[in-house]
């Protein structure tokens, strides 16, 4: 077998392995996206009226979650999966802080101005993300320690 034929075979092999994985990742990401879209359709009407910025924030959240779901699924079995898990946890921590304006939401409705503060709950959410990041790091270490050496 020539070198070109060997290379052609390995590309075919890679494609044979990757296509079902990409397909599965696409299906899972689409399901997650559809679920988020459905929940948005359920709750968006009162939310947008009270908090107009929520539409943009939710769009960013949905695309990010769809992206991370797809990436984590597609890189399953590699170290990259854990990088994306850590990245997702980091994104969620930053997103929660930004979207909730640091735990203080202010809404104007008719002649009233409402303010809702939930800094302790936000801290708990950020702690959750930090724990998820720590878990991702440990899983990555475990993965590398268990992987067969080249």
């Amino acid at each position, binding site marked *: 077998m020539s070198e070109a034929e060997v290379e052609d075979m390995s590309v075919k092999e890679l494609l044979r392995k990757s296509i079902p994985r990409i397909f599965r990742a696409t299906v899972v990401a689409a399901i997650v996206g559809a679920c988020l879209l459905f929940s948005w359709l359920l709750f968006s009407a009162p939310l947008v009226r009270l908090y107009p910025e929520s539409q943009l924030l939710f769009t960013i959240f949905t695309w990010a979650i769809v992206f991370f779901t797809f990436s984590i699924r597609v890189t399953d079995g590699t170290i990259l999966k854990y990088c994306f898990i850590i990245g997702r946890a980091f994104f969620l921590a930053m997103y929660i802080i930004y979207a909730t304006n640091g735990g203080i939401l202010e809404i104007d409705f008719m002649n009233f*101005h409402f303010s809702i*503060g*939930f800094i302790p*709950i936000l801290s*708990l959410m950020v702690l959750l993300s930090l724990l998820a990041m720590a*878990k991702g790091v440990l*899983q990555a270490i*475990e993965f590398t320690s268990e992987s067969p050496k080249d």
Partner: protein
Amino acid sequence: MRQVIRTLNWTIIFLTVTTFLLPVTIGISLLRILEQPNAIGFKEPTVSFSNGTFSLSAPFYINNTGYYDLSDINVTILIGRNNTTLAAFSSPLLNVPAGTTLNSSYDLSFDIEKIVSKSTELLTDDTTLNLSISTFFEIAYVMSLGVSTNMTTSWGAPFYNLTVSEVSWNFSTQEFTVVLSFENHACFTVNGTILLEMCNSRSELIGLIETCLDVPSDSLFHDVLKLTVDRSKMTDNGIIHIYFENVQILEEWFSSE
């Protein structure tokens, strides 16, 4: 390593459930309070105005039928006119533990002298006041809720159309006669002492008279005041100062001719 990851996993699951259950149960708790027809209410307020002090006492109750304590309940009222803050009132921080009823009252009182020093027209002119009311409380010690609103309210002057008229010198009794009149447009009874000072054209005091007022709301005050004056200091014209509880409310020139 696996055990650490498993422990972390369970911690994350426990915290996630807690993080999502806490706001939900807080919401249900708030709904339980608001569903009660007599959860929050005010009783008949009492308003008084005497000795230069305006006092308002509004009794209220809060029936906390929710699952969590309500804490740091505070109501702040700012009263302003033409972008000037005339007065600011804030209630002490109150706590209502879950399953209890709080009976308290919102008391505010202020010295009329301080208010009038910022806007003297309040005593003599009807006007519109800007009210800024804000309420704040914490529920379950983790979530705070605040509501604020701005509104306007009409202010009825307690000495509306305050007039000094028919200033005349009575030769037979050697007295000045002054007719003092005003309408009490305020929602409270005007109680206190009014002092009328008469000065000559050189601003020297020539006579004064004090009279006690007890003018109910929406009623007219009309009285004839007689002053004995120092004849040696009398001039053809002069100035009359009227004070209510040491606050000057009127200054008017007169002619004795």
